[in-house]
């Protein structure tokens, strides 16, 4: 907390004003300047960024700073590898600082698979600038020309001598500005990145020493609880706080619609909340039974977590008129919950008018802004720190909890922790939006697609475009008034859109008696995606078949592909449907290509994890709701994948050192559901067009 009192956050100071050398000692600092058009909104040419910075110190260690955060996806090590590569240091000599708004570059948030694509490139460019300076210093020290110097293992080597990088830093206090044109090392030359690496913080995980937000316990801590509406759409009419107020040690805070309590121990905080008597008002809310009609009948303006797509090529109307065969189907996906194993948690503490909030969040700078607005203090008076976080999956963007903790801490003059119960996590978070997707396709007698109409209702535009070469297309999406709060989720709409498109492609292949792999390949314009499909078909031992012909054995195979956020995926599923119609997933093969691979083991781990997560939404996850109330807000009522649900998963990674690295955390989810749906069709002849496919484990 002493750091917090020191002064302005780095991102709000000019680089020359920052106290890098007082804080970290002599050495070299390289800074990639930010591109930030303002606190909100994207600049031209894509999302803005806050740059990156790296300090190289006298012990031959480097500290790199990025605005992205680590919530369990492993980017901390992957990004550190890129820095180590540029600086010629071993991985163990690089420490990455993430998730601290006082020290890190501004960033809009860790979502959309941008950590490798953006932060990775920024750190490489910053590292390249630092490397140039290190090489120049070494050349001078060794009395050789710069091109004769090489860096590696923390040492600068010339033709006939060497000097440790740390030694070059003695007595130096230099700041280098990195230029975006700085040339980082080519992935094909990588010595550290792209190779096996171990996570330096791993030991604390297996000993239980790692502290998550919900584990933090500053002296004087109070436990906070917030009064939430019992259903969506309800507003507070009257509240009687008298019974809560008389409980010993309990603080009650009532500001506008906010009612919160704080107590020295959690049990008393719960008791205080139970003692609050509240009456709520609010009209009826849509229920699950009418949801598709509700979404169709209630178009809305778009929300900020998705883009609207309105893509048109050729002349769809004429193409459908001329098509010999046309097919029209609707596909849906349910609302599902992120269920991070660590529920949302925040700890807030004030010190001398400055607020620090430890928050498990994917968007610390957005939280800083929200805290600044809600508490009417400048952003420079707020520090948000992201401790180890028990996963996010797109679900940890909101700042309400941080604001609530800050209000309670301010009112009580003590640090306050709020951690959701699992039921609060289900009821107060937001969900992956439900999707209703209408597809109409037209083809010639030979099966060649000529017309494609794709309309996504409510779920968003991610991966809505088709990777197939179709001359006439109309692809759009329409946001709806959702009866449940909805927002970001790992791969968001890409899962729904890919499920719809890849199911439909399989239906077309069946209609025309074509092999599902061959039918896709003959329409596929993207050579990278075709390569992934071929690799997976080969690994899976795919035998070309004229069409899915339901087998008496109940055994079936399905394949699906997807392209999203720069990554290409193909998934194969092998299933069995028993005489009791029970579905068993026998095997999954997933191939993934996302350019140059930076951290192979972590990428593999992400692909496996994404596949497992996708199994839940594909097979059985669904939020049930009625009149604004969540009916299954407990893990005993909302099923997520367990050990018994996980088949062997064979991951095929395609490395492309000639291409920039894209993210690996999201896109590997998107082809799992359609691969399974296609396999179920292959096994039974039943085409399932709604996710989850088998809520009770059996094929309907």
């Amino acid at each position, binding site marked *: 907390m002493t750091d917090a009192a020191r002064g302005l956050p780095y991102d709000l100071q000019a680089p020359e004003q920052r106290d890098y050398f007082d804080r970290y000692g002599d050495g070299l600092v390289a800074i990639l300047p930010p591109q930030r058009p303002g606190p909100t909104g994207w600049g031209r040419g894509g999302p803005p960024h806050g740059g990156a910075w790296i300090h190289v110190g006298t012990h031959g260690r480097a500290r790199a700073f990025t605005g992205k955060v680590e*919530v*369990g*996806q*492993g980017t901390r090590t992957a990004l550190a590898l890129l820095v180590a590569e540029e600086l010629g240091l071993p991985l163990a000599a690089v420490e990455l600082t993430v998730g601290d708004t006082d020290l890190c570059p501004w960033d809009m948030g860790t979502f959309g698979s941008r950590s490798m694509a953006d932060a990775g490139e920024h750190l490489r460019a910053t590292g390249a600038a630092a490397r140039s300076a290190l090489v120049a210093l070494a050349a001078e020290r060794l009395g050789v020309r710069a091109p004769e110097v090489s860096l590696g293992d923390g040492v600068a080597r010339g033709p006939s001598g060497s000097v440790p990088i740390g030694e070059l830093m003695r007595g130096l206090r230099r700041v280098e500005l990195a230029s975006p044109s700085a040339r980082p090392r080519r992935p094909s030359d990588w010595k550290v990145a792209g190779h096996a690496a171990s*996570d330096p913080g*791993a*030991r604390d*995980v*297996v*000993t*239980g*020493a*790692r*502290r*998550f937000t*919900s*584990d933090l*316990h500053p002296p004087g801590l109070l436990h906070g609880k917030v009064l939430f509406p019992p259903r969506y759409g309800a507003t507070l009419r009257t509240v009687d706080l008298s019974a809560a107020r008389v409980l*010993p*040690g309990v603080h009650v805070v009532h500001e506008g619609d906010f009612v919160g309590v704080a107590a*020295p*121990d*959690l*049990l008393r905080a719960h008791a205080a909340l139970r003692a609050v008597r509240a009456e709520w008002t609010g009209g009826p809310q849509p229920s699950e039974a009418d949801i598709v009609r509700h979404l169709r009948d209630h178009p809305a303006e778009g929300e900020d977590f998705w883009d609207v797509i309105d893509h048109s090529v050729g002349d769809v109307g004429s193409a459908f008129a001329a098509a010999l065969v046309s097919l029209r189907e609707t596909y849906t996906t349910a609302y599902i919950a992120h*269920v*991070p*194993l*660590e*529920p949302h948690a925040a700890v807030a503490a004030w010190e001398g008018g400055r607020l620090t909030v430890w928050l498990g969040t994917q968007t610390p700078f957005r939280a800083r802004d929200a805290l600044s607005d809600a508490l009417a203090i400048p952003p420079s008076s707020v520090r948000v720190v992201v401790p*180890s*976080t*028990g*996963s996010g*999956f797109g679900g940890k963007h909101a700042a309400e909890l941080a604001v609530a903790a800050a209000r309670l801490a301010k009112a009580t003059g003590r640090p306050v922790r709020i*951690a959701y*119960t*699992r039921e609060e996590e289900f009821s107060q978070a937001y969900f992956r939006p439900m999707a209703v997707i209408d597809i109409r396709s037209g083809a010639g007698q030979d099966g060649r697609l000529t017309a494609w109409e794709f309309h996504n209702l409510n779920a968003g535009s991610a991966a809505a475009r088709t990777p197939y070469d179709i001359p006439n297309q109309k692809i759009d999406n329409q946001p709806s008034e959702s009866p449940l709060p909805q927002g970001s989720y790992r791969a968001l709409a890409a899962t729904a859109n890919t499920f719809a498109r890849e199911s439909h492609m399989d239906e077309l292949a069946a209609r025309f008696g074509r092999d599902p792999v061959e039918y896709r390949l003959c329409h596929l314009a993207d050579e990278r995606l075709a390569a992934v499909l071929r690799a997976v078909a080969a690994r899976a031992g795919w035998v070309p078949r004229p069409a899915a012909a339901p087998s008496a054995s109940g055994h079936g195979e399905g394949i699906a592909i997807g392209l999203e956020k720069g990554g290409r995926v193909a998934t194969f599923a092998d299933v069995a449907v028993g005489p009791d119609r029970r579905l068993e997933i026998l095997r999954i093969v997933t191939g993934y290509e996302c350019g140059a691979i930076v951290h192979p*083991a*972590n990428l593999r*781990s*992400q692909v*496996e*994890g*994404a*596949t*497992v*997560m996708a199994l839940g939404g594909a097979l059985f996850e669904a939020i049930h709701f009625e009149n604004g109330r969540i009916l299954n807000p*407990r*893990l*005993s009522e909302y099923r*997520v*994948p*367990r*050990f*018994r649900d*996980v088949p*062997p*998963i064979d991951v095929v990674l395609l490395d492309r050192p000639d291409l920039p690295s894209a993210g690996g955390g999201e896109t590997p989810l998107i082809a799992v559901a359609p691969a399974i749906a296609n396999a179920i069709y292959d096994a039974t002849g039943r085409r399932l067009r709604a996710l989850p496919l088998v809520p009770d484990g059996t094929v309907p």
Partner: protein
Amino acid sequence: MTSPEATAPSRNSLALRVNGTVHPVPVDPDRSLLYVLREELGLTGTKYGCGEGECGACKVLIDGVAVRSCVTPIGEAAGRSITTIEGIADGDRLHPVQEAFLEAGAFQCGYCTPGMIVTAVSLLDRIPRPSDVEIRAAMDGNLCRCGGYLRILDAIERSVRRSAPPAGSAP
């Protein structure tokens, strides 16, 4: 660690033996073992995940058997030997299961890991050479939302291979 307001008279306290140390804690039917470990003894390696015994993040060993501490009333744990994740290693020397989790890279966010390790330690104490079916059955009450199940299975299989010679091998 216990706040002064929460301290009960000593006649209403019971002795809780955790990782070899005896702690007097107040008798209170509302307090789960998880609550006391985390909030009163500061042993935060054991995690809250659901409060209803569904996720396994809160598992600890009681007399060597993995139990869900969130649904274990404090009274049931009194007088027995409790081991939390903090007590699994022998000082600085990691337990073979912990070593295997590190080797296999068997976690992403790490929040489920303590419960997973405790459950695996309990399994291998009971069945030193479990089959794949036995491993999955023992672990099925533990959730990993990052989807690291296959690596966790790999870690447990590594521990098994290390601790037991393959069947039929000569001495």
